[in-house]
């Protein structure tokens, strides 16, 4: 087990390093940073002085390791647009996105696990069809459009929830639903198919045969086994949701990492863009690492095979 966890951690570290290289190259190969920073109509001397001042005249490799070394110690330089250290900006915005992501995945799980279980208990019933419909529509719905519809319905027509800003917990309800709905189809389908498979297995038949109550068979035996892969998927989905938060946070003017990323992209704020892309990737890498290790701990077949 320890050996598996170690091997998996080394892989995660390698992936993290590669991702950091991609983040760095993404910005530095897509554009000439000094020219973009100088702005339109800047003279060649102005561009040159910026190049010297920020050290952009050094070779790319040197600059990468310089950036990486500082980043590893939490120093991402100063924001060009906000004029404050990037790390402070990120630390300020991070909690909002974490709350949003957690609430969104909680909403997704609360909606999809019960529906997935009910659908598996009665295949082809109306619950099953409803579940399938929610899943199919969820996969085809543009997230930002769904967010605008929620805004219109609950914020404007019913006037029960705030639609913009991040001051109170009520501000997080609509964004969490909009973002979480995006993760429901996958979780719902996996719960349903996992539950169907488990319900047909021998140990469920044995549990029923020895006369256990239906509820006890369902919750103690079936659900526990069906839910393990769902938890792993939820961890991965949470990573995806954080990446997708840029859309939802922009719609609801929620002051988190995604909104920060959008502001930074629009204002050519390279240090912030690099930091946010790297950070969201790192969260994803850690989440998948944890879910893999947890899965291996629960299921010996994974760590041996």
């Amino acid at each position: 087990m320890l050996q598996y966890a170690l091997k998996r951690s080394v892989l995660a570290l390698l992936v993290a390093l590669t991702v950091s290289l991609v983040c760095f190259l993404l910005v530095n190969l897509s554009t000439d940073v000094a020219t973009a920073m100088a702005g339109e109509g800047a003279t060649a001397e102005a561009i040159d002085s910026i190049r010297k001042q920020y050290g952009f005249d050094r070779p790319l490799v040197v600059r990468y390791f310089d950036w990486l070394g500082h980043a590893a110690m939490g120093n991402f330089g100063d924001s060009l647009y906000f004029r404050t250290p990037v790390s402070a900006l990120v630390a300020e915005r991070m909690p909002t996105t974490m709350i949003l992501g957690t609430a969104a995945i909680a909403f997704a799980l609360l909606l999809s696990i019960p529906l997935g279980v009910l659908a598996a208990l009665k295949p082809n019933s109306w619950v099953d069809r409803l579940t399938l419909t929610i899943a199919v529509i969820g996969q085809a719905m543009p997230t930002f459009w769904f967010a605008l519809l929620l805004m219109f319905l609950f914020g404007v027509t019913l006037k029960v929830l705030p639609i913009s800003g991040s001051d109170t917990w009520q501000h997080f309800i609509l964004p969490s639903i909009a973002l979480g709905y995006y993760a429901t189809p996958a979780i719902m389908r996996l719960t349903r198919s996992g539950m169907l498979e488990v319900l047909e297995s021998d140990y469920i038949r044995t549990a029923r045969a020895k006369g256990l109550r239906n509820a006890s068979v369902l919750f103690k035996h079936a659900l526990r086994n069906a839910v393990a892969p769902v938890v792993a998927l939820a961890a991965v989905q949470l990573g995806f949701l954080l990446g997708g938060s840029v859309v939802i946070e922009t719609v609801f003017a929620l002051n988190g990492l995604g909104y920060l990323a959008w502001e930074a992209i629009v204002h050519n704020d390279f240090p912030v863009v690099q930091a946010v892309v790297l950070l969201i990737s790192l969260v994803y890498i850690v989440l998948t690492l944890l879910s893999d290790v947890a899965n291996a701990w629960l299921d010996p077949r994974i760590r041996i095979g």
Partner: protein
Amino acid sequence: MSNHAAILETVVAESFAGPSPGELLRRRIRGHAGLLIGALVLALVVLMAFAAPWLAPQDPLAQDLAQRLIPPIWHEQGSWAHPLGTDMLGRDYLSRVIYGSRISLLIGFSVMLISGVIGAVLGIVAGYFGGRTDLAVTYLITVRLSLPVILVALTTVALVGSSLWMVILVLGLLKWDRYTVVLRSATQQVRNLDYVTAARAIGCPTWRIILGEVLPNVSSHLIVVATLEMGSAILLEAALSFLGLGVQPPLPSWGLMISEAKSYMFFSPWLITIPGLALLALVLAINLLGDGVRDVTAPEGRS
């Protein structure tokens, strides 16, 4: 001798008695409502895109500030001159929705081609050769999955300059992962089957085994992923355009139309509901078609 002939006769008779594989496939397609509906709606949208110049009542870019924000025909103030109303610049909304289908389909199809070729090559190569090649490709998939697609696409498009072709290129270079994952495992299942071993045994060159034996046998997986990924690419373009970093004005991209109408949505909600419904209908149709093709071709769907 006569016994032998009798057996031969029953074998021949039986092979003619049941429906042919092609007939079975056609029956499964006819019995699958989702697939039929999806194919029908997609066909209609494709037709709409090709016939846009004849279908659209007006020029989708022509502005008329005297005719701003006219509501659609089902409102009291609606008029048949603009069946879906006009936007804040007085452009005919029906014409813009019709022309918008061209952008969504172009993006979906082009991204599918680029990412499909990259993803299929990586997946088949990894699955067929295994070993270190497989490790390298798996590593590449892990790295790719760790990067948030929307953020990376936004960043690149913003830095390089946003245009329709830039969006296509960036999404095409980013969205190959699912093809690779699916085709890698499909190829692993095929590579040691008898007909592949046989081709190897008679000295068939590797590229011919891959193109002639492996590819045709994983192609149903490829078609399913390609369909679903096309829907996902269309949604991504809409999101990028909605954030102002995808297709640029005045092109009538559905995502961009929603973005432009955002500040008018409280008094003129149809401006966001109509292009949103168009997106939903198109992607829903594509997904139903993809799911349907999977049900019809996958053995486990043949109950």
